[in-house]
């Protein structure tokens, strides 16, 4: 029987696409592809580390682009950012299917990998949208609007444009605590940054060591608005939590004010 290999790569999209390239170049039978943190403990298969090669990645992407709709390309990118276990295997199967067929098949939802990638991409899209909705900026003492988040998926690259075009006249930082990097806007450009944050800055609240004196007042005003706009006789806890899952409450000013 032909030997199966397990590939490992650096975790970047380019790295993953380099793996895809290798499967063609060396006619590999791939059992799985893993990002760096994973222990490679596949029995009975050989493991290989693939070095990221931007040139090869570009070649895979451009041949994909010829046969894939923009929605299909978006699904591939989004699903990749999910960092879900085993998503590389599904992406590889989808990409190989697209490249093997003459017709455009990236919307063939009866193919298991295409459907899986679309479903994961949908989850990532939802998380992106939730971050655009639930991020709460707090005004710091040095006049930067600051937000800390812990998203399920790596969505910072996806929300960059939205925040840039919306908050063009204020300095802001959105920081992913889980992945320890952030976006910073300086009134001109958005850059990726790494900070050494004091944990006391937190995700909500307005400790005076960090935040502007007016910050707590606006949080209280918002909280008042949130309370007053509710219609008690229509109470619907189930719907409330369905739209606003509890794991997002930590971001929300209206759910985290110590005293009313």
């Amino acid at each position, binding site marked *: 029987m032909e030997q199966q290999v397990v590939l490992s790569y650096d975790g970047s999209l380019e790295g993953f696409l380099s793996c895809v390239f290798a499967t063609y170049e060396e006619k590999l039978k791939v059992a799985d592809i893993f990002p760096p943190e994973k222990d490679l403990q596949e029995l009975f298969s050989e493991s290989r580390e693939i070095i990221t090669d931007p040139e090869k990645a570009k070649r895979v992407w451009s041949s994909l682009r010829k046969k894939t709709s923009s929605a299909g390309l978006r699904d591939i990118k989004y699903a990749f950012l999910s960092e879900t276990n085993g998503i590389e295997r599904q992406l590889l199967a989808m990409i190989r299917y697209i490249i093997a067929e003459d017709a455009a*098949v990236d*919307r*063939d*939802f*009866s*193919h298991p990998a295409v*459907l899986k990638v679309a479903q994961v991409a949908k989850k990532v899209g939802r998380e992106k*949208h939730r971050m*655009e*909705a*639930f*991020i*709460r*900026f*707090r*005004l710091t003492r040095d006049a930067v*609007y600051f*937000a800390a988040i812990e998203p399920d998926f790596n969505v910072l690259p996806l929300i960059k444009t*939205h925040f840039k*075009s*919306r*908050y*063009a*006249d*204020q300095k802001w930082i959105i920081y992913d605590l889980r992945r320890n990097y952030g976006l910073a806007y300086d009134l001109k450009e958005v850059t990726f940054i790494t900070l050494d944050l004091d944990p006391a800055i937190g995700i909500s609240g307005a400790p005076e060591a960090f935040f502007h004196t*007016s910050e707590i*007042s*606006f949080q*209280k*005003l*918002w909280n*008042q*608005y*949130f*309370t*007053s*706009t*509710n*219609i*008690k*006789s*229509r*109470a*619907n*806890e*189930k*719907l*409330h939590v*369905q*739209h*606003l899952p509890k794991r997002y409450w930590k971001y*929300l*000013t*209206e759910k985290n004010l110590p005293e009313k």
Partner: protein
Amino acid sequence: MDYERIKEKLSILADAAKYDVSCSSSGSKRKNTTKGLGDSSGMGICHSYTEDGRCVSLLKILLTNHCIFDCAYCVTRKSNDIKRAAFKVQEVVDLTINFYRRNYIEGLFLSSGIFKDADYTMERLIQVAKKLRLEENFNGYIHLKSIPGASDELMREAGLYADRLSVNIEIPTKSGLKLLAPDKKHEDFIKPMEKVKNEIIQYKQESKLIRSTPKYAPAGQSTQMIVGASGESDRDIMYSATFFYKKYNMKRVYYSGYVPVTNDSRLPAMGSQVPLLRENRLYQTDWLLRFYEFDVRELLNEDNLNLDLEVDPKLSWALRNRHLFPVDINRVEKRLLLRVPGIGLKSVNKILHARKFRKLNWEHLKNIGIAMNRAKYFITCDSRDFEVKEPSSEYLKNVILGTSSGKFRKDISSQLSLF
């Protein structure tokens, strides 16, 4: 800024504005091209949800709850003994900007009680919008209420700064309006609607020739009807809605289950239940009209004055039209595919894409995500197993009800057990 005073006003004037259900912030085309604040060119965003499950997208407040009118259904009516308050124009501007900068909201929805007269009130609303646009360089979403009876000149000006304008018809029948809002005339509602409609048409024509034509209410206009306050039927409501969609190019019609705010013999008593399920069925009908190519007369007519509360309106229609089913999922045209119970818009598109590649079977359909418990009785696919055995519609309805669950089921069964 006197935060305590603002907070008190906010509590009064947000509380009074909350019965206006519209919170949409989508459909505008205002881009942030000037490096100012805000952008409303994309889809709407719900930044939070209240404990009643409604979206919070806009800062929705009244400028004041002083009002010269005495409409029975309204909490702000003249004769109601409540605390009154009024915001200054600058206070609303500051609140909007500071909330927006913190990513709490998509923009402002400003309404008002009518003080002095219609034009005076409308002018104040416009001042807020104008200040936001011209002084604060704000490109977020602004929804202004058109005050019934406001002059054409003011409605023209309002549309230059607002993304959406709306005037709530509130009572779907003229007779109901006469009974519950004796000070208001039907024509007063229609006049600003007509003006806004014409301005939008004119803007669309002119902007084709001259690209710099200033935008006019790019997110269109909407209206709202109260459900269950004046004894109207679902047919009355949906026929009025259809009229407003067609005649005034409404972007949206909203349906608001009446929340009792007063003891008045003309209205449901305090403490009576808000007709949430009925409201839900009306929205489903609205969707069928706007996205599923249904005609209102197919859903509501002389024989069907009210919607079936037990099942959704599409299923209800399908049960009355069994002769059109079952349809073959692999061949049926889109128009009819849209009409299959349990298959929504997204699934329709997925099916249309997927069936180009292979014949779909039950497994495919399940994975695509259609609601099999309803759909399976109305379709065939690439399989020999069918659920189509010609049972009566009544029997089928009971089977479907028995194999599904609904959050309002408790309410209906208690209503039915009366008989």
